[in-house]
């Protein structure tokens, strides 16, 4: 990994601050023009209306400036569309450790997700239920554990 790539990859998601944008799979590319020193970073949103994108763009530019790349451009692409399958294993482990149940495998295109059993990230019980398929951010659903009674967030498969 280049220094520019490392700097961009270290930016944390502003709404789920335990995971980096690289681990979340929204950092798509970091290209460095060695002659001019200009860096082009490509990111993709989790959801089209994700309100964190402006903050992420600013955070990426700030991280690159700190790493010695003041001339950085952040591009946003929509294709191919982000999938929760792009979240790395390290990212999944960090989500679970933070009490956010990681997503199941993404459904096939055009197919409505079949809700599989989601394990409680706090006590590990599979005896859980969905309270609402929409949660505190666009990418999460609200669940509750029937064993330990705790509510928890679930990153829904997309």
């Amino acid at each position, binding site marked *: 990994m280049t220094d520019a790539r490392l700097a961009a990859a270290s930016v944390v998601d502003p709404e789920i601050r335990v995971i980096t944008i690289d681990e979340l799979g929204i950092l798509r590319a970091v290209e460095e023009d060695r002659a001019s020193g200009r860096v082009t970073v490509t990111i993709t949103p989790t959801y*089209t*209306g994700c309100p964190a994108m402006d903050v992420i763009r600013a955070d990426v530019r700030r991280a690159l400036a700190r790493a010695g790349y003041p001339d950085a451009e952040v591009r946003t692409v929509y294709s191919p569309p*982000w999938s929760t399958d792009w979240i790395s294993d390290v990212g999944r482990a960090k989500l679970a450790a933070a009490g956010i149940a990681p997503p199941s495998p993404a459904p096939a*295109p055009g197919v*409505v997700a079949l809700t599989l059993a989601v394990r409680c990230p706090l006590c590990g019980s599979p005896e859980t239920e969905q*309270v609402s398929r*929409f949660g505190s951010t*666009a990418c999460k659903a609200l669940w509750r554990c029937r064993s330990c009674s705790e509510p928890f967030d679930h990153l*829904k498969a997309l």
Partner: protein
Amino acid sequence: MNGPFAFALGLGDDALIAAQRLAEWTTRAPEMEEDIALANIALDQLGAARLLLSYAGELEAAGRDEDALAYLRDDREFLNALLVELPNGDFAVTMAKLFFLAAYQLPLYTALASCPDERLAAIGAKARKESAYHLDHGALWVRRLGDGTEESHRRMQDAVDHVWPYTHELFAADPAAPVDPAGLRAAFDETVGPVLAEATLTRPERGWAPTGGRKGVHTEHLSYLLAEMQVLHRAHPGAQW
């Protein structure tokens, strides 16, 4: 008005006006979880609207960006279908609108995802995943209310009867468009039919079918919605916070 600009604008306006209507529920939904759900769906629609309006602005090549198109057009220049501008009514009416809109947008975006226009294909591929969740949510409430108490059944049936005439406009033929809406009707019927049946609701007969939205001829409701949505930008052009 036809052509790629009008097509992208019409779909973008559908999403924008649907987002604005759904946002009216914020802090007013019957329960906290539903409040969050409707705000989330509104946000998805707004996200799709921004992509579609930005692209429409580029196609028009007249220097209008997403903000200029959203905030500086009058009602006659909006090309959204009438369905999305209808007032929210009670919760059942909102759910009928949400369900029918998602049952149209999901096959629409799915078809767009494989159309030759790369930009529309990218937007379709992204938005269809979100539409699948909207459809699931709308269908869940239609079933729950339709197959619920006597009162919830009565109100859900009233809502379906009220909104149904406005669904026909969504499928008006446009053979030159990247995706001809007429070809989406079968998928819509296949989605809607079983859900209404399971909800013990009667699917209305085909009758009155108001149109005009795609030509900029709207109900009076759109003007009030636009007044609220646009007032800040018009009073303080370029305002940022």
